[in-house]
């Protein structure tokens, strides 16, 4: 990839607004976007329908590059969405997804969890996102602790000219303020449409703990967004 990482996390909302425009999503006057039924699957997952035939995974496991390409093309959009929401930056998300797919490719010969490929893939991706998020936090910690502040604060996102852009920035900011585990649980459940059993396979946490994380994330997001809106 030949792009410099110049997108501050705070620009995430602007990125997504631009992405929407690219996808011809109509922006309503009240600052909201229309519901997009095409993003929902009967199983609750939003985006391309989850689940590839086991035969595709089996072929990829045997070294069939075309089958691996099928897997990548099928899951890439959802993986990118999850990573973008976890990391708050599209360029970082691309890096995380690339790394996750390469790890999947390297581990496929040892893959035995047939019927659970999606959970396996997301487990690898979630681990990668956690690693990258921790790295980014460490970078921020050292930069802010030691470095002289020339600009003083993080770069402000570019102003957007619509209400929806402002809403997206608020959502992004609130999401970033969530602890990573809460954010992860919220996204898997409410955005990726996964059940607690599947989330358990991805995170290693028990369903009861996951339910608490989702609820806590929801409460924190709601409180934060209401606070911002009332300010």
């Amino acid at each position, binding site marked *: *990839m*030949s*792009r*410099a*990482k110049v997108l*501050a*996390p705070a620009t995430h909302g602007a990125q*997504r607004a631009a*992405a*929407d425009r690219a*996808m011809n*999503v109509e922006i309503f006057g009240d600052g909201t*976007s229309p519901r*997009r039924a095409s*993003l929902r699957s009967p199983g609750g997952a939003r*985006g391309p329908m989850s689940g590839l035939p086991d035969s595709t995974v089996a072929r990829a496991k045997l*070294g069939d*590059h075309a089958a*691996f*390409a099928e897997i*990548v*093309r099928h899951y*890439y*959009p959802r993986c*990118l*969405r999850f990573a*973008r929401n976890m990391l708050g930056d599209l360029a970082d*998300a*691309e*890096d995380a*997804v*690339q*790394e996750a797919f*390469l790890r999947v*490719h*390297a581990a496929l*010969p040892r893959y035995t969890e047939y019927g659970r490929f999606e959970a396996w893939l997301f487990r690898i991706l979630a681990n990668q996102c956690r690693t990258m998020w921790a*790295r980014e936090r*460490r*970078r*921020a910690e*050292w*930069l*802010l602790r030691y*470095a*002289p*502040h*020339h*600009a003083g*604060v*993080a*770069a402000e996102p570019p102003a957007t000219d619509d209400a929806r852009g402002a809403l997206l920035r608020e*959502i992004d900011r609130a999401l970033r303020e969530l602890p990573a585990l809460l954010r992860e649980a919220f*996204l898997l459940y*409410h*955005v990726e449409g996964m059940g607690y059993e599947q989330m358990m396979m991805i995170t290693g946490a028990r369903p009861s703990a996951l339910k608490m994380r989702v609820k806590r994330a*929801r409460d924190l*997001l*709601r409180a934060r*967004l209401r606070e911002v809106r009332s300010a």
Partner: protein
Amino acid sequence: MRELTDDLMETVARELSVLPPVREEAIERILELAAQQRDAGPAAQAARIEPPQHGAWRARQRAWAGAGLAAALAALLWVGVARRSAPPEARLVDPAGPAGTAGEAASPVPGAVVVADLTAADDALRAVQFVLDAPGVRAVAVVGGFNDWDPAATRLERVPGTTVWTTTVLLPPGRYTYAFIVDDSTWVLDPRAPRAEDPDYGVQSSVLLVGRE
């Protein structure tokens, strides 16, 4: 929507559900790297090393990383020799500074200097020497994208009898931002390197370009 009973949370979930634009070249890159991974074989896959680093060069690093591990070990030994007997290939890669030589590496001057290439390959590791003249200090570390900005990761050692601190790290070609941390508390920019402002936090770092030769 699942268990979301208020409009605000409905909106949050809906907005986060929008799929980002997919770059076809990003997918092609994954498939290309996977093919390289397959061709390199399981041993090379197991030997993959992943220097913590942001950005554009990460993808290319993976291509050589397997073979690079063994080469890196050999290079560490070689660098010790290189710092005493100037290899003609050595050069200063700082685009803002004057061209350096390996002779400078043997007698360190402040800055970041490439002192050795490991192989003739485009993506080979380069041995980069970081040097800081810092009289009267107790410790010097270098932090940057290549070491996760961790001050404990890359400590400089004082050249006996001098006030010069130095260390050598192996880096693939790419652009790196870095800074020295003196006495675990003071952020010091490289006086010979160009500077760049961090887009996220508005602080300045030095910039090092390690080129392909």
